[in-house]
């Protein structure tokens, strides 16, 4: 049974490890079930929740592998619990099939991916933002996900609450993309009061009356309506609940009817990008060199912009707080007036490809790749200088 008083941390400032801040954000968001499996560097999340969750009346299971972990989460979510797992790249790979299934069945769930170096086993304690494509493209089929890229322990707390809200609202797999450094960083985190937290949280909605129209979650015309997820054991659960393309009654559709349900799975996100995408602009108004970054790298870039401005370089930062769905329109307008774009990433340049889709063909773009470590501000600043010199 829910023990309300134990769910929320004492308000005020706490020094928390990133992985713990993430777990506490999940607690605040109403997490009731965690299914996980140990993997470096995410293991502190289950190690914290193993005692935190039960004391607040939730359930924790260490499963026998990642397949089991994500499927326990999907099962718990269909049973009405807010559910999540935490893992790293190799674990996310194993979860791919179920993530695709959850996308097809529109099961709300949250995956915390504490990214580590890859491919393969990689360097397990080194950060590497190399799951930014995996989180969207690992599963079969066409579907969309939502992915948050926090850059501080405070954001791990705050954005995890948002991630749960997004999962409930848009009924899709939602990621919190942390990394080995961020997950193990210890920083002050300001915890709001329980009352303030409750105001932020989107509760699991349950269809309260038999309403076939309202339940037609794959039959949305015009403005896309996303009805609440069906919850097992409630009177309005469909006869069957399957991951094949299905009609409102839950019965699979024919080949000639499949376009609509598949399109809706994608469009419920792509047509709502403006509502979902979170971005931050720093000194962009007169920026000639636009830096585009996300996650821990973005944190360095605020400093890089300050350093550049001191040198008289008109640099600005466009930060992607959510990386998926990618805000193509916003990036287009941000880069429109720039002379050059700099994209530092903690990988060889993955999201740079998405930026490339938004920029005029002739506009120069500089990647600043870094692997298994965080950028030194000077490394990015040098590229900003170079960009400015080449395109005065």
């Amino acid at each position: 049974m829910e023990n309300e008083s134990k769910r929320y941390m004492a308000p005020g400032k706490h020094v928390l490890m990133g992985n713990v801040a993430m777990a506490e954000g999940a607690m605040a968001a109403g997490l009731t079930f965690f299914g996980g499996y140990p993997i470096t560097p995410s293991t502190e999340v289950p190690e914290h929740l193993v005692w935190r969750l039960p004391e607040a009346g939730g359930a924790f299971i260490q499963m026998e592998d990642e397949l089991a972990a994500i499927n326990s989460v999907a099962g718990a979510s269909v049973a009405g619990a807010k559910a999540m797992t935490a893992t790293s790249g190799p674990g996310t790979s194993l979860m791919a099939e179920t993530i695709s299934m959850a996308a097809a069945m529109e099961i709300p769930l949250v995956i915390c991916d504490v990214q580590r170096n890859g491919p393969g086993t990689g360097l397990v304690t080194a950060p590497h933002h190399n799951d930014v494509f995996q989180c969207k493209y690992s599963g079969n089929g066409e579907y969309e996900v939502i992915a948050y890229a926090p850059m501080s322990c405070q954001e791990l707390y705050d954005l995890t609450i948002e991630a749960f809200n997004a999962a409930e609202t848009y009924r899709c797999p939602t990621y919190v993309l942390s990394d080995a450094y961020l997950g193990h960083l210890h920083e002050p985190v300001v915890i709001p009061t329980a009352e303030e937290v409750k105001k932020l949280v989107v509760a699991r909605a349950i269809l309260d009356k038999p309403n076939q129209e309202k339940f037609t979650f794959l039959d949305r015309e015009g403005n896309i309506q996303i009805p609440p997820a069906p919850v097992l054991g409630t009177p309005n659960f469909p006869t069957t609940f399957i991951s094949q393309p299905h009609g409102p009654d839950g019965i699979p559709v024919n080949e000639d009817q499949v376009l609509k349900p598949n399109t809706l799975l994608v469009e419920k996100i792509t047509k709502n990008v403006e509502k979902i995408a979170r971005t931050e602009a720093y000194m962009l108004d007169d920026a000639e060199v636009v830096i585009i970054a996300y996650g821990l790298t973005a944190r360095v870039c605020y400093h890089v912009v300050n350093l550049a401005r001191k040198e008289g370089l008109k640099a600005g930062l466009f930060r992607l707080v959510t990386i998926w769905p990618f805000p193509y329109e916003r990036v287009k307008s941000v880069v429109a007036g720039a002379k050059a774009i700099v994209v530092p990433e903690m990988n060889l340049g993955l999201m740079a490809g998405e930026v490339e889709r938004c920029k005029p063909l002739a506009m120069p773009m500089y990647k600043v790749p870094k692997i298994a470590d965080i950028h030194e501000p000077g490394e990015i600043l040098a590229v900003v200088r170079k960009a400015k010199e080449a395109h005065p």
Partner: protein
Amino acid sequence: MITRPDDLPEEELLLSGTRSCAGCSMSLMYRTAIKALGKNTIITVPASCLTVLHGLYHKQSVLVNVIHTTFETTAASASGIVAALEALGLDEKITVVGFAGDGGTSDIGIQGLSGAAERNTNFIYACYDNEMYSNTGTQRSGQTPYMAYTTTTPHGKLEHKKNIPMIMLAHNIPYIATTCASYPLDVFNKFTRAKQFKGTRYIHVLAPCPPGWGYPTHESIEIGKLAVRTGIFPLYEIIDGKMFLSKESEPYLDPRKRLPVADYLKKQGRFKHITQQHIDTYQEYVNGQWDFISKML
């Protein structure tokens, strides 16, 4: 079969400079096991302490061929290696071994292991059992014993150990053995015997882990011996379905000769919190295990 430490082959295939923890019994066991397996061995290893032990380029500590595979695929990886060696006509010359931890065997890897055993794939599967996910900082596994503390069983695990050798027995494989890192001659003899069979052979090795179990690093051998002398971890072989108790465990068929389980439990930090009631439950479980063994003999 050898009976004296002097009889162990002198050539070392595991060199100094491993990256294992101080007092790691798994590394001692591994050193002896690969002496028995010999140089013409291919070992496939999933994510585990053993991966770490092998070292980083260019300070490799092992002189047999080792391939690192994904966590869940030790036996599947071995299946591919075995099939390829057979196709290339090299299978008579080379021994293929899957060497995994207890989590990699009884949790994430059991599907692959069961599949390989059902096909009676010609390889040795060795599980070194430190009763937890030691490599990621000691979380519970299917092999964690009753009431043991791990970081994901903060009040002690409520379930007993999963009996993997018996699961393997159900696969009708030719050779199954249990051994313990504290008995190097037994380890050597069982790996040597396993080599003589064709088909899937399974060896389960208890490998006490000082940081995970909470005892001083110099007590690894003692702790392993206590596991045997209390009857908690019986050493035996099952050859073509017939069980033979190993001489180290023979005396403990007689319950009066077994040390009380408390002698073992009280030496380890992971059992610090247990009550007399838990000890009694543990003792009952061990007695029941021996009742079962006596019927198997």
